[in-house]
């Protein structure tokens, strides 16, 4: 590109102004990337769950309802089921942390057959199976809190009137876009603790009406299907099977199950899109103003170029290219930079437990980049058209 030198020199002509434009572009896009990624990432990781052929059974009335543990055996008998585990949220507090990390009572024999995207060393898994008070935690959870195999993990009951004194028997690992901050312990260990409190009569009055918090509750049941095609028929079969029981069920794919949580934040999502729109518009003004200032200073120069024989389309192109480069540099720094940073630094760690994992999906980063190019084009258009159509003789007459 023979005009590239001239375009680049123009970008660098007023370095402070270009840098300020690039900085405001990149900072705003950086923040936008974080906000948008939060939803996109949730969507993407729940959609990604599709490939694991898992379905989730819960009480038809939601999480407060009971899903008897006896359902588990019946589900395991059904055709198309590879494995099934209870999956019961505990939500205990670790030390003085306000936000509980994810802890689930599960079946030690099947959990890693079902969540087969995670890996655990064999000896650790065996050790976990043998120890009733054992637990397996994610690598990032271990790193955040400096926990090792063999360490105790005392959890204080919050939703449930029991404390669990767990000991860490293994650490699981997996892709960085999967949740590496969960804790799995024996469902039976949890249930026995609940039985003991029930027998002692402690707190039983306060929990009388809340069947979901009594012993014998599987919470939810995660089922690994033998193939993708059985997921839908199996889901209906399970729901049909329990329709006339005391606790009818609702079974859906893990993807749909995950989306329920995302949808709970629906309004927030819209608000964030509005904020994103406002940011784009204000960036248009910032970049447009910088470009207009640049062109005002170059009135004579543009006239000289046109006198020499540079046609309107070429002048238009030169200015638009300059605007796109400035905005695009901000876009590269803001969106790709944000992605690189989030891939490199574990942002979730600093969210105080609010986010189990965080990354900027490619489609969001590329959208950010495209937005910056659009801002470049749109902000450069008015100054470029003005310059391309400006009068040569007036531009030359202007005293500099």
């Amino acid at each position, binding site marked *: 590109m*023979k*005009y590239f*030198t*001239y375009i680049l*020199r*123009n970008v*660098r*002509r007023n370095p402070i102004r270009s840098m300020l434009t690039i900085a405001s572009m990149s900072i705003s896009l950086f923040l936008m990337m974080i906000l948008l990624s939060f939803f996109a990432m949730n969507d993407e990781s729940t959609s990604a769950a599709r490939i694991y052929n898992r379905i989730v059974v819960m009480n038809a009335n939601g999480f407060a309802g009971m899903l008897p543990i006896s359902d588990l055996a019946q589900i395991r008998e059904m055709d198309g089921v590879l494995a099934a585990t209870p999956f019961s949220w505990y939500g205990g507090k670790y030390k003085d942390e306000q936000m509980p990390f994810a802890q689930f009572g599960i079946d030690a024999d099947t959990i890693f057959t079902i969540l087969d995207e995670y890996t655990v060393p064999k000896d650790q898994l065996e050790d976990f199976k043998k120890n009733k008070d054992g637990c397996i935690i994610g690598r990032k959870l271990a790193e955040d809190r400096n926990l090792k195999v063999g360490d105790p993990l005392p959890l204080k009951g919050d939703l449930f009137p029991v404390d669990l004194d767990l000991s860490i028997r293994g650490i699981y690992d997996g892709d960085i876009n999967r949740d590496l901050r969960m804790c799995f312990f024996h469902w039976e260990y949890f249930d026995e603790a609940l039985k003991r409190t029930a027998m002692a009569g402690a707190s039983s009055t306060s929990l009388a009406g809340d069947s979901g918090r009594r012993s014998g509750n599987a919470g939810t049941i995660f089922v690994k299907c033998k193939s993708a095609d059985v997921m839908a028929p199996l889901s209906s079969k399970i729901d049909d099977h329990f329709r006339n029981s005391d606790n009818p069920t609702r079974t859906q794919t893990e993807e749909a199950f995950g989306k329920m949580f995302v949808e709970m934040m629906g309004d927030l999502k819209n608000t964030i899109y509005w904020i994103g729109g406002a940011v784009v518009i204000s960036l248009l003004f910032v970049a447009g103003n910088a470009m207009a200032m640049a062109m005002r200073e170059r009135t*004579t*120069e543009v006239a*000289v*170029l*046109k*006198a*020499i*024989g*540079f*046609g*309107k389309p*070429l002048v238009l192109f030169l200015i638009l290219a300059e605007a796109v480069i400035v905005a695009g540099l901000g876009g590269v720094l803001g969106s790709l930079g944000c992605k690189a940073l989030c891939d490199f630094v574990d942002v979730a760690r600093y969210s105080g437990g609010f986010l189990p994992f965080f990354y900027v999906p490619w489609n969001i980063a590329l959208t950010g980049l495209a937005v910056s190019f659009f801002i470049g084009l749109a902000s450069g258009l008015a100054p470029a058209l003005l310059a391309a159509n400006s009068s*040569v*003789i007036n531009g*030359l*007459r202007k005293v*500099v």
Partner: protein
Amino acid sequence: MSQTASIELQGVDKEYRRDDFKIPVLTGLDLTVAEGEFLALMGPSGSGKTTLLNLIAGLDRSTRGKVIVHGQDLGDLSEAEITRWRAHNVGFIFQTYNLIPVLTAFENVELPLLLTSLSKRKRRDNVMTALKVVGLKDREHHYPRQLSGGQEQRVAIARAIVTDPYLLVADEPTGDLDRTSAGEILDLLEQLNQEFQKTILMVTHDPLAAERASRTLHLDKGQLVDDKVREARVPAAS
């Protein structure tokens, strides 16, 4: 060989409009310039010298009358066509040099060649030739701010001649220069006229500058009032 008409103006009027107000600048102008002439255009400020130059160089259009340059009636060309025509046929030299400050001497001179389909290598050859003609071969990497006024003007002249146009227009090319530098610029223009047979149209306020031309025209109140042919300096017919 008889002189072919290089520039021909027939009954040219030029008026500017400001709101409903017409300001006549040139009225019923006739002019014939032969190929290879070095013409000086003088006249009081506001007499329309720049306006006339702009008409001939294809930067502006006459209100009435014909402007024919090198056989081309400029009135027949669309805006895009006349822009292309300028790129091929006219070299511009301005009082304030008007080099692009962010480009080196080399890159400034190369600018008009970017519009052609010449290879990078060929462009380089042509730029270096032009810089050699103006005596600034060793300054190709200098930016305009690193050059003296006289040197800047010489780079501007190199830019004007690099595409080998046959008409050079210069609007007070020595107006911002000291005597010595002005003399060098005039030497150069004279050389371009005599050695390279360029037709040159130069506006000037300086009678000494006008001395160098083969003919001097005086413009006053919209009319060419005086036309002195200096017999001694008729251009060599080619």
